[in-house]
């Protein structure tokens, strides 16, 4: 991407930062009530859906935006997270807390294996194709191993505990997901601003130079990959708990494509860009599919327009505008 990664707060100084945080925080808390009373449950469902995908997109961006690795196989981690949680809840009647904790670790293990085999590959295309193939392997395993995963019947009626049950309203689930997503996003934020994050960014810029200052490039990439897989797994859990039924479709490689598109739409140079992209994608999907069955055509054309004319995404454009405005004010 043409821009530097924004890891500092985009606003001026401390006052600006706190205003920004309080306003967004307040909106996120008030939103569900507004949606539920004022509009409809469906929009609250969308908001909850956005939360899960936003976390997925944010974790994925660690690998793409910050690590410079175009992984086309992240659906594997999302799906393994969802399936691990669902299987534990359905087959082993595990308490939610255990299933919730096991899922990201399972996803991280898969991330370790796939990552280990992939990070040695230099070359964007090779890497994309290889990660895609490994993820498809996971898809096929889940699809065909009917005795274990129920195959393409999927898993229906996941027993979601009462406190986040979505039977009557999505509001309890929304706050549950909100808390989880905010915690995870905060952790990712700290990681991105840490020395590890800085070195990861330097690897992305110039892996040769990084090697010449002693950095074991593959090592760092693998660690970023595993962390990303971990949080993608949590996103998968959130998805499973929201939908209460999942199928192998969530492991299909187009899901990996979807999360890349969210990053592109929202802007990969901004930390929260992918979250914005997730919101846009979910809303756009909902809007378009209510009018036409040709969502693919719509998505494809949008994507081409973005690639050709707005490669930095909506978030990138916003940052640009803000910086021009700031310079004009100062100058």
């Amino acid at each position: 991407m043409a821009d530097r990664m924004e890891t500092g707060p985009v606003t001026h100084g401390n006052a600006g930062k706190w205003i920004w945080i309080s306003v967004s925080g307040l909106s996120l808390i008030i939103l569900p009530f507004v949606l539920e009373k004022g509009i409809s449950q469906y929009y609250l469902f969308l908001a909850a859906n956005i939360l899960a995908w936003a976390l997925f997109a944010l974790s994925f961006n660690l690998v793409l935006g910050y690590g410079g690795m175009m992984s086309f196989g992240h659906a594997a981690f999302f799906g393994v997270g969802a399936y691990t949680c669902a299987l534990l809840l359905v087959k082993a009647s595990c308490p939610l807390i255990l299933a919730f904790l096991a899922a990201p670790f399972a996803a991280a293990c898969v991330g370790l294996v796939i990552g280990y085999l992939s990070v040695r590959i230099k070359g964007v295309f090779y890497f994309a194709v290889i990660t895609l193939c490994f993820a498809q392997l996971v898809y096929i395993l889940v699809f065909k191993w009917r005795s274990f995963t129920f195959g393409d019947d999927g898993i229906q009626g996941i027993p979601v505990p009462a406190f986040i049950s979505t039977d009557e309203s999505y509001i309890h689930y929304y706050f549950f997901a909100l808390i989880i997503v905010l915690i995870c996003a905060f952790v990712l934020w700290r990681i991105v601003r840490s020395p590890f994050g800085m070195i990861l960014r330097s690897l992305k810029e110039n892996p040769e130079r990084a090697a010449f200052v002693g950095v074991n490039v593959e090592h760092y990439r693998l660690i970023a990959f595993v962390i990303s897989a971990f949080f993608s797994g949590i996103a998968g859990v959130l998805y499973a708990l929201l939908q209460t039924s999942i199928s192998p479709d969530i492991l299909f490689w187009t899901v990996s494509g979807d999360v890349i598109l969210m990053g592109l739409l929202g802007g990969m140079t901004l930390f929260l860009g992918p979250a914005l992209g997730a919101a846009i994608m979910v809303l756009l999907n909902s809007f378009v599919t209510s009018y036409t069955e040709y969502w693919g055509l719509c998505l494809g054309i949008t994507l081409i327009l973005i690639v050709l004319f707005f490669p930095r995404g909506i978030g990138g454009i916003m940052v640009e505008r803000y910086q021009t405005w700031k310079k004009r004010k100062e100058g």
Partner: protein
Amino acid sequence: MSLDPSMLLVQFISGLTTAMVLFLLASGLTLVFGVMNVINFAHGAFYMLGAYLAFTMTQLLSGSLGFWAALLIAPTVVCVVGGIVEVGLLRRIYGKEHLLQILLTYALIFIFNDLIKMIWGVNLRMVNMPASLRGFVTFLGSRFPVYYFFILGVGTAVAVLLWLLLKKTQFGKLLRASAEHRDMVGLLGYNVSTVFTLVFMMATWLGGLAGAVIAPTVRISMGMGMEIIIECFIVVIIGGLGNVLGALLGALLAGEIYAFGILLLPNFAMAFLFALAAVVIIFRPYGLLGKPAQGMS
């Protein structure tokens, strides 16, 4: 499960036919990468288009005539579509980041899928085999569908033509040189845009042909493009991106492993392919015949 030699022979030939179709597709994909440094994620869509066009031809012209016309016309139409795509879209992204190039061809998949849905609808389509190619033939003590040998024939003919093109013609030499050194085309004074368009059209022609050839043996559906592209990718991973011989080698390996994989673990035959790809990557990260230089970002 008995290891009946005649069944093994049937599987072997079946594997060869799969390999031929994969080769038709993978060779185009790998050539485009070698010369133009672009991975066409939508390659499977051209294959699917070829199959659907074959269906339409057999609807327009009844009987065997429809099929033979399809073999001629479908790849040509696909090739023209490929040319339009290259000139209209791909040209705009050549200098850009690889990420954007990948996403552009990825977007094409969706557009193609929906356009095909619009034109042909979502129902499964079938193409009837021409009378001359139906039935079975006995060879070395086993019965094979005649069509297998047709596919083998077409595949071999194309492979030979491709070999002649690459080794004996000026254009072919240019393509090979270009795969070694990215800037060769421009440096030697050729018009880069024209060469790129020709290569892309060639690749899509091969893809359309593969679709037309396979049409009588499968149910033509919307998911075709998505499924085949994965197998295609595995073939080029095994063989090495940019190397046509590698594509042939990869296709043969993939075809045979799949054919025999079905005998061992019918449900997980695909998994063998992935296992092979994984093994190749561990020992030769750039494919059996590939080189890292061209794959660099």
